[in-house]
Structures are given as C-alpha cells and as structure tokens.
C-alpha cells in the first residue's frame, strides 16, 4: 500500500517535472496569485475565462494550470487582506481581521510570512491527503450504483447550501434553478430538445462558460462598480523583516496544524471548500484561550492569520478528492474543472485513475511543486504584488470585460455566446441585488443532467419504487448524512430567528 503510493507519486512527479508541465504549473500559480491579490476578480471567473484557451493544450498541462489558479489564489488573497484591509479572495475574509491589525502595528512582514508558511505546510499535507485517499475512495466508487450516485449528489447539493454563507432557502432555490437550467437542450434519452424555443444554438444547452462568465464576471463587475471605491491604504513601507520571531513561531505552529486538519476535512466534504475552511479555522482559534503575551483576537493575533490561511489552502487541495475519485464536483470551482476535463474528453470519475494514471498522479504531484513555487512567488517577491495593488480598479475592469468577451467568443467562434453572456450578466447582477448567492446555481447546473440520468436509472431498476434510496445501505447512509448536515445547520438558524423575533417584541 505504502509502496504503491510511492510508485504513484513517482509517476506523478515524472509527469509534473516535464518542462512543459512545470511551465504551466508556474503560469497557473502566477495567474492565481495575481487574481488572488487583485480584489474583485476570483478564481472562478479566471478559470472560466481561460477554459477556451486550454483547448490547444495537452490535458495534463491544462488541468495543472487551472488547478494552480485555484490554490494560487488562496496565497495571493492573504496579501491583500493583510496590506489593504480588503479580502483579495472570498476565502481570506477572516484573514483581514487580524492580518490588517498586524500590518497597522508594523508587523505586516510576520503576518505575510505566517500566511505563506501556513499555506505551504497546509498545501503539502493537503496533497498527501489527496494522494492517500484517492485509491481507497476510488474502490468505494465502484460499489456505487445509480441510487448511490443520486444520494451522493444530493449530499453534495445539500452541503453546498448548508455550508454556503447567506440564506438557506434562497440557496436551495439557486440549486433548483441551476438544475433546471442544466436541463435546457437535447434530452439524451428521448432526443427531445427541451426549453430550446426552436433556437438551434439552444439545442446543445446553455454553455456553462457563458453562465459562469456572465454571472461571476459581468455580474460581479457591475456590482463592484455600484459602490464607490473607498480610499485604499496600502501598508507598503511597513514590509521589512519578513521573518516572524521565535515567539510568533510558538504561537502559530499549533494553529497552522489545527487549521490544516480542519481545512483538509472540510475540503473533502461535498459543498465544502476554501471559504468554509477558513471560517471554521478562525472560529476554532478564537475558542482556544490566548496565552500571556499574545495579542487578543481582532487586534493582530498571528494565529488569526496563520490558521485560516492554512485551512483555505488545505481545503482547496482536498476539495479535488470528490471530483477525482467519484466524479462529483463539490463546489463551483470544481464544477468548472469538470468542464475542463470534458473539453479534453475525460469523463471525471473513478475510472480516471486507471485510464489516465499520468494525468491523475501528475495533477496531484504538480500541486506539491506548485506550492513550492507559490511560497517563492509570494514571500521573496512580495514587493511585486504590492506594486500591483496600486493599479486602480478603473483600469482593471475594462480589461476583465475584454478577456471575458474574447474567452466567450472563442469557445465556439460564435456571437450567439456573446449575446447569451450579456443576458447572464444582467441576470447575475439581478441575483446579487436580490441577495441570491450564485455559486450554488453553477453547481446545480453541472449536476442537473447527471442527477436526472442517475435518478432515471435508479427508478427504472426499482420499477418506480422510491424506497430504493433508503433500502440500499450506502445510499441510505449518504442521505442520512445529508439530513444530519441539514439539521445541524438548521438548529442555530432556528435559534437566531427566535432571537430576532424576541428583539422585535
């Protein structure tokens, strides 16, 4: 078993260390850091933008680069959080709290180092977890029938709702809407084009690049432009002496380990991911008593930077596990990775490991190399990113609009996609205005056809008997887990509503 793992990793490293793949890992990490540092553009929009450009690449290089963007963004996001008091990335929202306070006290250097070291440690552990879990989980996947796949997807969708921030009911609505939008186009079983309004382009369905770019690209930009840009204060002068003190190390060491563990665990859960990991890790650190000589939380405690940064990176790595072993994307970024794999004719699922071992292990090994690249990109080269932070948004957003438009057009060389992305831009802005979080929609959109197909098969096999989902033990277990997750999150929600009602009285 252990020997097998070493064999696999050796194969992976031999793939990842080819010059071409090293270059694309570097490009991915560089782009990831770039968009991580820049507030207002996230990995989701970037990966969507670059998908068409990966047509021409070999599949290994394409996936290695896109993965690099995702975990690279986790590194870059912390820089902005610490120096500008703005989260560069959604997953660095909590890093802002203590990171910025450290910067104000002239300790930006140690804060950046804590984030970098935490991320690196977490990245290495996350990669090992991914490699170690892959084989056993793939074997479990072969026990799965259509009923189990349905139950697993439901668990994933419930997870996405439960772990998402914001209103539960609206998140459920977005999932349902996403599932429905995913059904537009020709039904594989009957050959009937559903909801296509006799428009030939719609018989192939709505392109998910169009949805992703419209909602996450244009919708976000319009929303960003609607609130006036506040004066950004960049703490550039204060970045000297990167290295944390011995006492800092004593405080942040255990915090990094805790953050990594929690992040890795939450990353595996369907619906989990970097954002959730960071939030949970910060909450955990706050619960642990501060030692004498330590700053209070919210005033620049180094644990408040190290733990969430470790957690978001660990989670971004382990969230590949459900995708690579079961073929089920657990969050919106992973849903885009499904798209990237389909472009290259790879069906995500347990068979990838056996049919494409070079791709599978190469991707995993590249993550370790990528993490090593990232720590070099982010700590010694920090000055470069600080300069980038002074680029005003009014120069950035037209460039983002342009790259979105070129990306969308070049997917099919068709202006139809451009009209559609305009439509979804309006829709996306509407969602933001109405407080409807769009990420669950994209996940539903990808899972829609898969869920329908497996549901149809499961019920065909059981002759229409719905009890098949609870009589098969694996499926029942997964559904039970979904139910448990739901009740867990409903409890505090009920409490909160009660409190609100109480205040109103």
């Amino acid at each position, binding site marked *: 078993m252990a020997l097998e793992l070493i064999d696999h990793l050796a194969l992976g490293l031999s793939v990842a260390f080819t010059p071409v793949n090293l270059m694309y890992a570097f490009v991915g990490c560089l782009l990831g850091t770039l968009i991580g540092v820049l507030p207002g553009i996230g990995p989701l929009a970037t990966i969507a933008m670059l998908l068409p*450009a990966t047509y*021409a690449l070999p599949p290994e290089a394409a996936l290695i680069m896109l993965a690099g963007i995702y975990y690279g963004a986790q590194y870059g996001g912390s820089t902005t959080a610490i120096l500008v008091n703005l989260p560069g990335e959604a997953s660095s929202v909590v890093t802002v709290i203590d990171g910025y306070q450290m910067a104000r006290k002239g300790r930006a250097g140690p804060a950046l180092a804590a984030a970098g070291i935490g991320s690196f440690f977490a990245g290495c552990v996350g990669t090992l977890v991914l490699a170690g879990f892959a084989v056993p989980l793939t074997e479990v996947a072969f026990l799965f029938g259509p009923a189990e796949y349905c139950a697993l997807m439901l668990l994933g969708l419930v997870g996405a709702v439960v772990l998402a921030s914001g*209103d539960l*009911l*609206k998140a*459920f*609505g977005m999932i*349902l*809407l996403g*599932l*429905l939008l995913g*059904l537009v186009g020709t*039904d594989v079983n*009957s050959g*009937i084009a*559903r*909801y296509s309004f006799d428009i030939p382009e719609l018989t192939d369905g709505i392109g998910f690049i169009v949805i992703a770019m419209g909602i996450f690209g*244009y919708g976000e*930009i*319009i*929303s960003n*432009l*609607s609130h*006036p840009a506040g004066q950004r204060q960049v703490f550039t002068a204060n970045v000297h002496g990167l290295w944390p003190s011995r006492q800092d190390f004593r405080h942040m060491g255990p915090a990094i380990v805790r953050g990594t563990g929690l992040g890795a665990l939450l990353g595996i859960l369907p619906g989990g991911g970097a954002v959730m990991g960071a939030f949970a890790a910060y909450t955990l650190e706050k619960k642990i008593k501060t030692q004498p000589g330590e700053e209070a939380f919210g005033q620049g405690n180094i644990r408040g930077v190290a733990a969430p940064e470790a957690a978001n990176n660990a989670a971004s790595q382990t969230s590949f596990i459900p995708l690579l072993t079961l073929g089920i994307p657990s969050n919106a970024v992973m849903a885009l990775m499904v798209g990237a794999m389909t472009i290259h004719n790879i069906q995500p699922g347990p068979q990838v490991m056996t049919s494409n071992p070079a791709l599978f292990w190469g991707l995993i090994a590249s993550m370790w190399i990528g993490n090593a690249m990232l720590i070099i990109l982010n700590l010694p080269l920090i000055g470069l990113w600080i300069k980038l932070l002074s680029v005003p948004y*009014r*120069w950035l*957003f*037209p*460039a983002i*609009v*342009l790259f*979105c*438009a*070129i990306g969308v*057009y*070049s997917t099919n*060389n068709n*202006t139809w996609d*451009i*009209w559609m*992305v*305009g439509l979804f*831009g*309006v829709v996306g*802005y*509407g969602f933001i*205005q*109405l*407080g*409807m979080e769009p990420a669950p929609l994209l996940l539903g959109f990808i899972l829609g056809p898969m*869920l*329908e197909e497996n*549901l*149809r098969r499961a*019920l*065909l096999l059981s002759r*229409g*008997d719905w009890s098949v989902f609870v009589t098969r033990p694996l499926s029942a277990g997964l559904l039970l887990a979904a139910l448990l997750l739901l009740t867990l999150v409903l409890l505090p929600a009920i409490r909160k509503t009660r409190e*609100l009602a109480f205040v*109103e009285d």
Partner: protein
Amino acid sequence: MTSRSAVKRSKDFWAGALFGVLGLAFAWGALSYQVGSSARMGPGYFPLLLGLMLAALGGVIMLRAIRRPGAQERINPWAWRPLVAIIAANLLFGVALGGLPALGLPVLGLMVGIYALTFVACLAGERFSAREAALLSTALAVLSYAAFVWLLNLQLVVWPWN
C-alpha cells in the same frame, strides 16, 4: 415606513417572486413534453418535479418576507450606469466580431472591437477620461494581439480589411 412598502423593497420578496415565476414557467413548459411515470420517466418528469419544487420554495420565501416586514433587507439602488455600459460594451464587441447581417453591418474585427469595448466599458466608471480610455484600449489591443493572435493562435478576424 409602512410595512407594505418595506415588503415592496425587500430582497427576499422579489427573490421569492422570481423563483416562483421561473419555477412555474419551467413546470408549465415540462407539461408540453411527455411526463411518464417514476418507473419510466419521460423528458418532462424531472423538470416538472424541480419546477414545482422551485415554485413552492419561491412562495415560501415570499410569504416569509410578507409576514415579517420589519426584518427585511432592502434592495440597494440599481446601478444603471455600470449595468448598461458593461452589457453594451459586451454587445458591441460581439457586433464587431460577428457583424450584423440583418442591418448589413460587416465584420469589423478584433481591433475595432477592443477599442469599442474599452471605451464603452470605461463609461461605467465614476469618472471618464477619453485620454485614459484611449491609452488603456491601445495597451489592451497590443496585449491581446500578442496573447490571442500570436501565442494562442485563436481563429479571429483581426482587422476590418481581413
């Protein structure tokens, strides 16, 4: 503020309404396909199920907003200027690359598209400077030519005379 106007401006009320309308529309559309039974699902079965669930959920969200008008989050003012500018920039880019055969407008190509898109997109910002927009679009044109035409070799019409 009366409770009725609080409801009218609430995010939840309109989100619920949107879900309700879309759910009903999908469900109604599903009825025009064969629905079948659970053992033999037709193409209408799954969308009908989902559409009805979405409509019901939308109704619940709306009711919740109506019953507790005091606890409603209000919709922020719509940012018409960025909305119109960004979407128009995108559409103009499409027209430049694909032309408008219905109006007899020819394909003008990537370069014209970049200038049109950048200028119109810049109108979305708080202040507009033609000089800045010109500089920015030129920089983007050079960058896009290098990245998309040279390096990635995308199949695009670049110049109006191509």
